[in-house]
């Protein structure tokens, strides 16, 4: 059986992290499991955790009054769920729900923020890992907003 330290540091988000830092962040980690349909978090809730998916599929959803929720992204093995934990005032901006059995590492956000604040080198490293994820999700959102498949070009 793999130790939680090995699982955390082999996860794509923390892969290559300095060994000492790895020990530090592992102190904030625990294994969690979500059954199909379970919510990881709800919009507006406190962003107390971030989740590193080890196995499974998680949908990000926005509730629409009077209608079923709209799913706008799914995340899978190796992905990070939740970025609001790093951004004050630390509230989730959407819902996250497991759509298959999902096993993940839950990182205590208070703990991780504290360690990042105490050691700016670690904090900078974590930010450098988060920024590409934020950027790629921003680009994906831009493409989704353009609705490129919904409005075909008129060439006639």
């Amino acid at each position, binding site marked *: 059986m793999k130790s939680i330290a090995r699982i955390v540091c082999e996860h794509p988000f923390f892969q290559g992290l300095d060994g000492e830092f790895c020990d530090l962040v592992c102190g904030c980690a625990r294994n969690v499991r979500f059954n199909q349909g379970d919510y990881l978090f709800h919009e507006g809730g406190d962003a107390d955790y971030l989740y590193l998916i080890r196995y499974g*599929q998680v*949908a*990000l*959803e926005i509730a629409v009054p009077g209608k*079923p*929720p*709209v*799913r*706008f*992204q*799914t995340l*899978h093995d*190796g992905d990070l769920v939740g970025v609001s934990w790093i951004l004050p005032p630390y509230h989730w901006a959407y819902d996250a729900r497991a*759509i*298959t059995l999902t096993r993940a590492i839950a990182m205590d956000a208070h703990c991780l923020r504290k360690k990042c604040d105490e050691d700016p080198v670690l904090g900078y490293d974590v930010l450098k890992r988060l920024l590409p994820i934020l950027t*790629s999700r921003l*680009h*994906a959102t831009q*493409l*989704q907003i*353009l*609705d*490129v*498949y*919904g409005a*075909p*070009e*008129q*060439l*006639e």
Partner: protein
Amino acid sequence: MSDDLMVPEPVRVLRRQQELATTWTLELESGRAGRRSFLPGQFNMLYIFGVGEVPISLSGDAGQSETLIHTVRAVGPVSNKLAALKPMDTVGLRGPFGVGWPMAAGEGADLLIVAGGLGLAPLRPAIYHVLRHRERYGRVILLYGTRSPDDILYAGQLEEWNKRPDVEVHITVDHAGDDWLGKIGVVPSLVPTLGFDPEDTVAMVCGPEIMMRFTVNALRDAGVEDESIYLSMERNMKCALGHCGHCQFGSTFVCKDGPVLSFDRVRGLLSLKEF
């Protein structure tokens, strides 16, 4: 200019099948013998008499081309009329035209086929070709992105291809309700998750131009060389012979030099508006 290439040949519609809410597949007589042979990625000009003519990609199997298959989305006056054609109706046909997908250049390499929305139609003949000559290609990955689960083109066929052990099919949609258990997100975001060898990969991309731009960025970020990325460009083709200039794209005539072009030929022009 040969008159023959400019004169539409009347052919009959043999079959019409609805694919999506506004998208139909037409099976046409092939007309004279020369039209039966086409290359994956080529297109025909389809003419509704008295209305107009539009370029429509061939979307059938070039290896079984007794008839011609075209998938049409009804978005304008001509395509609306095309989509409404019934069996035994007549349509004008010119073609096939253009340069197709690099089926020979891709031999021995891994193939990454990326389709967005109706862009799967021009790629389908390439997929048929690859499956018929599967031993000639390495890993074959098909990425397909579209707006919603209801907008998945050739859904049954994608499901069949996905069952094959020698083809990897990844479908993603931009938005979905909670009854969709597949992937949600944009198709370029799938590229970094595939773990392919960029130096040994030929990519074929077709879809809305913005989707192709984002996909090319993802492919280049992954290390695929510009000359190994092929795009099928959509431009306002009229004569289909490189004479009228309607589809001119820099120094390239999309109808004659394309529609399939390697990215190194269109680099820098991809974001230009049509002129």
